[in-house]
């Protein structure tokens, strides 16, 4: 059954790193087909993995808008074209397919195109065992641009009060959308195990685990190395262990 996991959190807490580590682990394990969606306009997941989408979803959107402006294509033709363009857009590596949302290039209301695009993405995701979304911010962006429904919302935060506050805000917004089935919090970049004791965890979000600040992860980030090649390290292991025990991957 197709499952959708969205990784959300304040900027800079390491959600793209978490997404990249999970993607790398899923690729290493094999056996499941995974659709990775980089919903961050900055395209960080692509850089972290060293895998590029051939085109972004927004470029696909532009092409469809162009077809509408030209005329001569029925709605059914446009829906079919989206399936084609979407498959043309994905980058692939083993059991992973990678799709980037990209930056919106044209202003204006194209609600019907956005709906078609989301439907096509949901249809595509239905063929995969797991869809992993590295979200730009909160679930509302995911809900608007990517998927109507998220099975698991993985909130990532560092130990900062702001990071934890944003996690709560994201969850509140998600509850309003009624599109999330389960949630968990991963506290990332702990400087010591005791640091957890010094922070007040938000009530109502189950803590699925913690991950320490990690020199290997930092080095891969700084040097722009592909997380597909990251070796075992305390941070990597902790992220994978937490997500496996929470049933996310």
């Amino acid at each position, binding site marked *: 059954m197709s499952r959708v996991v969205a990784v959300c959190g304040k900027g800079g807490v390491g959600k793209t790193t978490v997404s990249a580590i999970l993607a790398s682990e899923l690729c290493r394990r094999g056996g499941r*087909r995974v659709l990775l969606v980089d919903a961050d306009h900055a395209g960080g997941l692509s850089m972290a993995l060293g895998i590029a989408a051939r085109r972004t979803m927004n470029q696909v959107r532009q092409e469809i808008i162009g077809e509408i402006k*030209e*005329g*001569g294509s029925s709605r059914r033709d446009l829906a079919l074209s989206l399936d084609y363009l979407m498959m043309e857009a994905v980058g692939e590596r083993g*059991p992973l397919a990678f799709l980037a949302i990209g930056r919106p290039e044209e202003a204006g209301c194209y609600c019907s195109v956005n709906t078609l695009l989301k439907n096509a993405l949901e249809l595509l995701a239905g*063929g995969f065992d797991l869809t992993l979304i590295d979200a730009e911010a909160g679930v509302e962006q995911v809900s608007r641009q990517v998927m109507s429904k998220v099975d698991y919302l993985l909130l990532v935060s560092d130990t900062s009060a702001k990071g934890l506050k944003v996690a709560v805000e994201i969850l509140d917004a998600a509850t309003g959308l009624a599109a999330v089935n389960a949630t968990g919090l991963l506290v990332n970049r702990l400087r010591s195990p005791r640091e957890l004791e010094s922070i007040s965890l938000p009530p109502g979000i189950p803590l699925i685990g913690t991950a320490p600040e990690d020199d290997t992860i930092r080095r891969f980030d700084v040097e722009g190395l592909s997380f597909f090649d990251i070796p075992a390290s305390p941070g990597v292991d902790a992220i994978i262990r937490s997500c496996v025990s929470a049933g996310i991957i």
Partner: protein
Amino acid sequence: MGLFDAQARSVLAFLADKRARKELIELAPRAGWPEAPSLVLEEDTALELGHPLQGSLAFIVWTSDPGIVGDGIDLVGPDVDAISQARAPLAQIVMVSGEFGEEYECYRELKDAVYGVKLTGVMARAMPSRQSFWYRVSREARARGFSLAHLGAALLQKLKAVKFVRSARIVFVTSGKPDLEALTAPARETGRIAGALNKMYEEMNYDCAECEYSDVCAEAIELKKIRERMVKRSAT
């Protein structure tokens, strides 16, 4: 003269030439390949036909002339088992004869039949505006003997289930880009006629003088008749 008769005759001339050169094989339809939508990733792919970088051409023509189309599958070029490259160009032409009423509805029904073919282990993606079909055949499907005779049979079955279809012929061309280029003219004309038809039915208020399809309507007298019929109908 029917809407696509000129294009159907161009395709038939191409086929006659290929037959004379002994470059055409008639495939016996092989029905029964299991049907299910399939997602085939690159790592599972044995062969891509009509990949966007390789070239693809796909169009539908119909005619009311019973002498033009008889049931069958024609193949110009190698079948799936004989293609050694990972990717090959593809032309897929569907020719149908029958009694056609409301042209737009008929065309839509034919397209639904063609686009509705989903075979297990074969991922099909269509881009009508580019007149392209892109198939990925999985390693498993090829190992199990998947052939264009299976795809052709599935297309024939779907088309023959359409009530106004009398006979249908599927043409596959895998021989290479020169043969695809030879079919570009009828493909482009068919695309323009279909585009004009779509526009006529989906955008009722337009100025013929400003329309980008006015040259097509000037050429295809049948389109003009359809438009006149629509205008008359909307006036009553």
